[in-house]
């Protein structure tokens, strides 16, 4: 497990109120035991009413009686949490890192829709630092006036990507260019936050993505070129090392990672993958690993880390609720659902 020493964690008195509030809100987070209870409910309606007992969701559920409206409820809850954490944080840079992922998602969707000549609205995320409409104005109408809320470096990176995409007709390559730009920008933004916790989290996320990309490429018997194109720089595992290990397959990956903190997880994940021929276990292990890392934020009493961890904990909680609700609505088997339920922060 990647641990951050106590001395490297923040101690910023400006966060006294924010951390206090987050500590109080953390008591409303859904626990692993509560998830088990939700899993035991007989159908989606029962789960919905059980969820109504949670203080975070009761207000949303008062407006929506039908479990089929779960997307609206989960999305408005996430929106509320983003607004709350960004509102109480003394410094927005670290938290904006999470919102920027949604900005790039919106850029990607708008760019793809323009390329395919389709409608975008239903796929846009309202959780970015800027409303999707502003992105549309910037990317489609090519307006810059009035978009003062967008940071100059972000506008520049979007313009650069658009420039690169002019001659690119391959949708996959267009997507890869956006993803590379996203992680490049996030790494720069994490540096700007000067917070080791945030920087390490991003590195763990990038490592997770790179390792999954590696395994997916092996499964599809793709050539090394694709792996090279899809790997993201700035993780803790160098991309060159992964490229060199590619010919050796999964065994080489396990030995490559044996001296790293991912050794145990990758061994378990690869064993699961070989047994079930499915990525679900591996993906779950990565998510759980990330959550275990985030739980170190509990030891910070003055700093942005608890806010950052709370926001990600809420994202995971919503992901888990979505799995449960989709599973219950579509009458999936209980074991099928429980296999995919992630570890929670609370």
């Amino acid at each position, binding site marked *: 497990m990647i641990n951050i020493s106590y001395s490297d964690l923040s101690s910023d008195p400006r966060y006294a109120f924010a951390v206090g509030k987050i500590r109080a809100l953390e008591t409303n987070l859904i626990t692993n035991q509560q998830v088990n209870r939700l899993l035991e409910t007989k159908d989606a309606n029962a789960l919905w009413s059980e969820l109504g007992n949670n203080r975070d969701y009761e207000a949303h559920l008062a407006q929506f009686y039908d479990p089929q409206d779960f*997307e609206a409820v989960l999305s408005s809850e996430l929106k509320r949490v983003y607004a709350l954490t960004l509102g109480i944080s003394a410094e927005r840079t670290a938290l904006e890192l999470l919102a920027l992922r949604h900005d790039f*998602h919106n850029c*990607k*969707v708008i760019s*793809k*829709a323009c390329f*395919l000549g*389709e409608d975008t609205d*239903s*796929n*846009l*995320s309202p959780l970015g630092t800027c409303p999707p409409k502003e992105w549309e104005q910037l990317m489609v109408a090519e307006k810059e006036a009035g978009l003062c809320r967008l940071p100059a470096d972000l506008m520049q990176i979007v313009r650069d990507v658009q420039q690169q995409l002019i001659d690119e007709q*391959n*949708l*996959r390559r267009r*997507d*890869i260019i*956006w*993803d590379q730009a996203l*992680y490049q920008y996030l790494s720069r933004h994490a540096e700007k936050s000067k917070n080791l916790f945030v920087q390490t989290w991003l590195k763990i996320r990038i490592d997770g*993505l790179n390792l*999954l*990309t590696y395994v*997916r*490429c092996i499964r*599809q018997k*793709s050539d090394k070129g*694709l792996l090279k194109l*899809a790997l*993201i720089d700035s993780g803790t595992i160098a991309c060159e090392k992964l490229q060199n290990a590619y010919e050796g397959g999964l065994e080489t990956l396990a030995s490559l990672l044996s001296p790293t903190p991912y050794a145990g997880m990758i061994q378990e994940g690869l064993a699961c993958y070989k047994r079930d021929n*499915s*990525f*679900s276990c*591996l*993906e779950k292990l990565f998510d759980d690993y990330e959550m275990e890392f985030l739980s170190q934020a509990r030891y910070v009493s003055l700093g942005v880390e608890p806010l950052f961890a709370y926001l990600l904990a809420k994202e995971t909680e919503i*992901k888990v609720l*979505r*799995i*449960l*609700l*989709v*599973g219950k609505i*579509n009458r*999936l088997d209980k074991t*099928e659902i429980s296999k*995919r339920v992630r570890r929670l922060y609370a």
Partner: protein
Amino acid sequence: MEQVSPTRMNLLAKKAQIKLAKQGVDLLKKKRDALVKEFFAIVQILLEARKKLEKTAGNAYRSLMIAKGIDGDQALNSAAAAGKRDVKIGIDRKILWGLEIPEVHKEGINFRRELLGRGYSITGVSARVDMAGENFEEILNQLLDIASVEVHLKRLGQEIKKTSRRVNALEQTLVPRLTSQTRFIKNALEERAREDTFRLKHIKKSGSK
């Protein structure tokens, strides 16, 4: 009963019609037997293919729900938009027992795409979406295999029904009607012959007096 004039000519014509109808019945029965044989040969293949398709569809639906549950609608729709494509397939027509049966040709086309082929970046889209995509592409493969067999079976079924109806119409309606008409003509002709004989005897008797 339809009025027929009781003439020897009509009797011969009706007898010829009965012979023809019986030959028709025989031929149609043979056709029906052949169609039924073909039907049962295909039905087994179709049942197995359907069972396989149902299993694949179940897996595909489950994998889609899991992808939807974990990644959410936005990510899934965005990945799906990139995966759209036009697919060309060939359809030929085969004639079997006078039946026109379409045959789908997808030689050289595998709907199952590689990771690169779905138009999205593998970093931005999870393996769950790959899984759902793979399963639905497999459904497409199986659906096209099944499609021509199913149409074949449906047309065979319709033809068997039509042939049975024709056999029944010939056996139960036309042949009995022709037989009764023949009987009527025969009776009328016999009656006429008896009357003639009686009349001749009567004339002979009155002439000798």
